[in-house]
């Protein structure tokens, strides 16, 4: 039993009993969480930007950084682990914003839109989400229970 800690732009998955898949302090970034109850697998990608066209080299070096390159990589990994990618449960967290009535710099919102569009192209959609608003989120998921627990400084932990 161990912790799989994912930094910005990382993706990973585990099906070892007792493992915790975790990512810290999502601001405008989005964690895409994929659960396969059949094999008790948990996958996650910590996406920072919507579209890899902004920097192709970065996308090669770290595909998890972008929604359009990160999600396909995670799906590929989970499928190679024996998950049925057609039956994955999807949950989303993150995509926060600074308070701004003018919505000037809305990376959080653009990340969420890009993630949802990509999932939709794969015939997938989230069953639960905690997205937007203006607080940072830490996400941890246990392979035993598949429970997605969120926390944020100054708030009691909650589940989605």
């Amino acid at each position: 039993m161990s912790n799989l800690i994912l930094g910005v732009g990382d993706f990973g998955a585990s099906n070892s009993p007792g493992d915790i898949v975790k990512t810290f302090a999502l601001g405008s970034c989005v964690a895409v969480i994929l659960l396969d109850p059949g094999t008790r697998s948990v996958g996650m990608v910590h996406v920072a930007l919507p579209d890899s066209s902004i920097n192709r080299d970065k996308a090669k070096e770290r595909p998890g950084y972008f929604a359009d390159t990160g999600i396909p990589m995670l799906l590929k990994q989970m499928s190679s682990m024996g998950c049925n990618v057609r039956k994955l449960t999807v949950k989303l967290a993150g995509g926060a914003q600074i308070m701004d009535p003018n919505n000037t710099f809305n990376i959080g919102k653009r990340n969420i839109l890009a993630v949802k569009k990509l999932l939709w192209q794969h015939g997938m959609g989230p069953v639960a989400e905690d997205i937007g608003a203006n607080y940072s989120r830490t996400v941890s998921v246990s392979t035993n229970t598949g429970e997605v627990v969120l926390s944020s400084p100054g708030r009691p932990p909650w589940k989605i």
Partner: protein
Amino acid sequence: MPMTIDSSEVLKRIEDAPLLSSSASRLLQITADPEHSLGEVADIVKTDAALTARVLRVVNSAAFGLISTISSIDRAISYLGERLVVGIAIDICASQLFDKPLTGYEAQRGDLWRHDLRVAIASREIARLAPQDMAVDLAFTGGILHDIGKSILSEFLTGTAQSVLETIEKGEAQDYLEAERAMLGIDHAMVGYELARKWQLPEPLQQVIRFHHKPSEADEEHRSLVYAVHLGDIIAMMGGGGTGSDTLQYHMDSAYTDYLDISVEQLTMTLLHVEEEFSKMEASLLDGKDGGT
């Protein structure tokens, strides 16, 4: 609100805060002057043995991966850039402030320093991208110092994070800054400004610290610099590098476009740039702190 305390108690704590070393304060003065030379910076570093040793440790740290050891201060400074040298000088004399765990914001030890470094990198990049008449390295130093008031205010805020967030959610306070004022009679920007005056920091840095959450109120002369740090702060928070409960609990002033010629696309690139630079710089600065090379 759980408590109200007199701001004079907070101000008393500023008097007890550490002083800047004379080399740090001279470095800040000189680098705020757009006409200064790298030689002047080197001359100050050479008079300070502790600073000299730290600068050499950082430049020779594993993070930079130099093939041969650098032993000359002039070469070390031109390699590191003066912004890092100034950052090291501030950290040597004020590390007790930067390394505090900020319990009032429910942040961990090191979170403030890491946030400041991210803001510094972002602010400098914004200053570099926006063709403005300002010293880009001053934006870096401004980023390092902008939230210094939190290190003093934090202990007075212990145990308040949850109720502060509720007041903001209910709209009783506009942002975290206003909630701090409602409770303590003073906010972290103003506490930082008082400290900046005690340290006799150059005027532009005082302005950055005081107005980083409301840049439109800064003196016209320094407003573009203050806007650069305002945006740098937001980029750091969006990238997940905040200081705990106050992360993203502020407003963005979109009038920055009147002072900085920078596109949303460029701001997005800056988010990526911070991510890359931060890990490199953090590793080298920590290596230098540990004392080993």
